[in-house]
């Protein structure tokens, strides 16, 4: 049996988190979703600190879905940190945000975001988006070991 992909969702708006969760249900790959509400929690998760100290319960994600406007530690910061970390930088980080701001896009890419997605209005679109993500990053894409 294939190991299920671990997806880390960093999102402060729980409505949005729900949307993503619902969309993910349409994936045909096995996955496990972990959700954190702000940048600080995201860091804790990735570095196995605080409540995420146990790597078993907080496994290394195969993909991170990252919102930009986060309290405490901002999404850009999280991205930067991940991509600067030798250990974590291989993890694909897909920005998932409501911001269409060109500055945000540029900034994200300058911090080596793997992809930048704008949260769509339509749920259908969201589902499509998420399925593509899954296919691409979890089914097709190869990760280093």
């Amino acid at each position, binding site marked *: 049996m294939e190991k299920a992909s671990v997806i880390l969702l960093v999102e402060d708006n729980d*409505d*949005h988190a729900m949307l993503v969760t619902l969309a993910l249900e349409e994936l045909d790959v096995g996955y496990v979703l972990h959700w954190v509400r702000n940048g600080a929690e995201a860091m804790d998760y990735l570095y196995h600190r605080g409540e995420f100290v146990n790597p078993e319960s907080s496994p290394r994600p195969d993909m991170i879905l990252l919102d930009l406007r986060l*309290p405490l530690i901002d999404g850009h910061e999280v991205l930067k940190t991940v991509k600067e970390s030798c250990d974590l930088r291989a993890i694909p980080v897909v920005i998932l945000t409501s911001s269409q701001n060109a500055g945000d896009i540029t900034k994200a890419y300058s911090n080596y975001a793997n992809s930048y997605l704008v949260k769509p209005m339509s749920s259908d679109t969201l589902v499509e988006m998420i399925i593509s993500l899954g296919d691409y990053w979890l089914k097709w894409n190869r990760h280093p070991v």
Partner: protein
Amino acid sequence: MISTKTDTNDHHRSDEALAERENYLKTIFNSVQIGLLVIDPETHLIFDVNPRAAKLIGLDGSKIIGTICHQFICPVEAGMCPITDLEQKIDDSERILLRPDGSRLPVLKTVIPIIIDGHDYLLESFIDISERKFIESELQESEAKFRDLAERALVGIYLIQDGIFKYVNPKFAEIHGYSVDEMIGILGPKDVIYPDDCPIAQENIRKRLCGECQSIHYETKIVTKNGDIRSVELYGSRTLYQCRPGVVGTALDTTERKHAELSLERSIMRQKRLNLLKQDLLASAKLEQKLKRITDEVVEIFGADFCRIWITSPGDLCETGCKHAAATDGPHICRYMDRCLHLISSSGRYTHIDGEDHSRVPFGCYKIGLVASGAEHKFLTNDVQNDPRVHNHEWAKEIGLVSFAGYQLRPPDGDAIGVLALFSKQKITNEDDAQLDALSNMTALVIQADRIDEDLRASNRIIEGIINAIPVRVFWKNKDLVYMGCNVIFARDAGYADSKDVVGKDDYQMVWRDQAELYRADDLQVIESGRSKLFIEEPQTTPEGNVIVLLTSKIPLRSSKGEVVGVLGIYLDITERNQMETALRDSKEYLDKIINSIGDPIFVVDRQHRHTLVNDAMCELSNRAREEFIGKTPYDFFPKEQVDVFLQKDEVVFETGKEDSNEETITDSKGAIRTIITKKTLYTDASGNKSIVGIINDITNRKKAEEKLKYAHDQLLEIIDFLPDATFVIDKEGKVIAWNRAIEVMTGIQAKEILGKGDYEYAIPFYGERRPVLIDLLLQQVNEIEDKYEHIERKDESLEGEAYMPNMKAGAVYLFGRAAVLYDSAGKPYGAIESIRDITERKRAEQTREGLVKEMESKNAEMERFTYTVSHDLRSPLITVSGLVGFLKSDLEKGNTTRTDTYLERISNAITKMDNLLRDTLELSRIGRVVNPPDSVNFDDIVQDALSQVQERVRKSDAKVTVAQDMPDVYVDRMRIVEVMVNLIENGIKYMGDQAHPEIEIGHRIKDGLYTFFVKDNGIGIDPGQSDKIFELFYKVNDKSEGTGAGLAIVKRIIEVQGGRIWVESENGKGSTFCFNLPLQPSKGV
């Protein structure tokens, strides 16, 4: 005609033969060169004659035939014919042929009888022997002469045959001491020739006789009859005498000649020796040596017994050691007393030259002295033993002396300088005498030459001494530019130790070979042109390798004939001199430059007030050239009245020696009158000459400038006085020198009260105290006051600043000041000026504008941020709604209703949120737009207002609220600040967290001179990293928490609009203190 009888038969043949024979005979008869005559013996008639005979006779044949021969052709008389009458046989007999013209022809006649036709005839044949006869007679004559000659000859002539003298001439006999008769036929060579020489002689004779050699000539000795031996020179050659061989020759008595030869040889030898002597005497040697040589030679050559030379030393006074000088009487008293003859050379028997009697002979005394003194140029006697003129006969006899000769030594152009004398055992011949005389002349020349040489040497020594002593180098070269001599110091220059090392070398061999070409070129020029080249400056390389400078003069050297034979050079090392000159020149140039660069006219005058020096500035002043000045007095350049003053002052300086500065007037070249101050100083030079050195300081311009300045200054003050802006001027000391009307009005202080006062008097009306103000900043860097001014700006040369003056008489005003330094014509600051303008209105307007601008800017920024935030944040709930609707729809389609409620609730919440967001957004924008005019209100009132609004919540939270006392007044929009306080208090409550005793403190403090209000809680605090973010619009730490997150953004906006600032001081878990400040008063200080 001869005819002979013959037969006819043969006649015919015989006739023919006869005829032929006859012909034949006729031919012979007619052609022979013998004269033929046929004569009848009886009649003595000539029968026939041949042509030859006819020719000889000189008649035609026909005339001869038929004549009688006697007395016709033959001188013999008739009857005396030798043939017929005397019956002589004439056969080759010499006869005479007579000729009709009377001449007699000698003939050789032969007469033979012939028969012609039966008749007897006589045939005479004769030949002409006239020539022979002539020759014979000649020969005879010659022989006679010869004999005569032989007889008289002074050479001996001999003829030897068979070893005997067959003939000798008298001389020959004489030579041998015999008579002719004693010799001829009796003696032979062997008898007379010296025995030792006989064999040779014999041999010689034999040679000649046998024909080995034709003639011989040799010398031999003979013994005369007396037994004397003499020498003869013999010549001889073979001859025939009486048809037999013999030797004939001559003999010459060479005895005398031999003697003479010997004598000559001796004489030549002597001459040679004398020449050699002469030659040797030419060589350089000491005089004594030469004279000794002479006396030695005299002894040798002439065989003298002894020979001596005395020479005089003129000036040699008799008292100085001459024993003869003591003599006071007698024949040998010294007459001259000032010169003596000193014996200098002696050869032969006596060689010593010292000795009491002879080493020194008074001039004019004794034989020697007499000869020397010239009384007798020469004295010669060949009989010393008896000659009365010689005084010591005994001595002469004793030694066996025979002759004495004394010769005066006198050079050709001078007086006698000595004597050459000799004694001899032989006679002195004339020849000897002549030679000795010549020798004495030569001796005199030698002595003279030596004396000249000595003088020359002495002279040379002096010259050498001089040239070696002087510091000038001297050298001389020949035409080939080879050094012939130099002085020592030159030699050293050349790198040699001694002068003689230089001789023979040329310049290429000297240490200055680099300059050789240069020197040689000059040398050649001098030699070729024959003219001196003087004072050439040229370089020279020293033995150390340095290059020095020389001053050289080259002069052509001429022979006595006037030809140039070389060049003489002298030079001095002028390197130092040059250096000094250069230094001096430089120094002089330097001084000149200095003097001429001084802008003030400078002049020097002598005691007679004539200019000796003027600089460029002086020349410019009077517009004259330097040359025009020198030697002239000022009267030539300037008006009399002015110059009178100058000179008067000059005199004072000359007299007193004291420096003087005097203000005078002078008219310059353009006719302008200038005011000057002339400083005059006395200068006395090393010789005591006095001069005055004057420097003119033209103060005309200064004076003018001063006046102008005064005028300008007064003008300026007038202008200042009428300026609309308040203006005052201070001088360097800070004293007020100008105070215009406007500032009188502004400050209320009158000019007359403040003029001349310093010590920041001018600050009083502004600040109420003495303190530096803007104007002082110019001249000093006073840091404290810089801070008191807003916008201090240095613009160009001035300083601008603004200040708020709360304490002015007219009330609080905003003033703008501009201050600048004032410079005089020299560019030096002499004071400062400040202008002050009341800009209160402007400031206000500015502030208002600034405020408006700021507002607008901030509004714009806000707007942007706002737009962004709103669009972003509003979008969020939209996404929620839209997404959830979508899922709801999809669920419903699938018939799944489990989550429907959740969806709907969330959708509803989202919409509510959107509404709230919109509301707050509007609120925020409203705050930005609408501003109530601020007013002064006590802060405490605001706090109370706020508390009353939140009273319910406060109560619910059990929070304890404390409010500070002595709240100041603030100048704000009251309602807004109340809102702020409400918000902050609410936040404080909201974020209490688990705090058991929630407390909220509201207070104020002063920090850094600023008033700050704060709301402090002891809640959960804020992470320091978030302290800025929290003021961002719609930022929420916790999304789920109450509100839109716009609260603090709104608060911040309000505070900022009021002109304050808000920040938070907090730490996680330690509560938060929100601080902000507010304007207490309308505006800040000026």
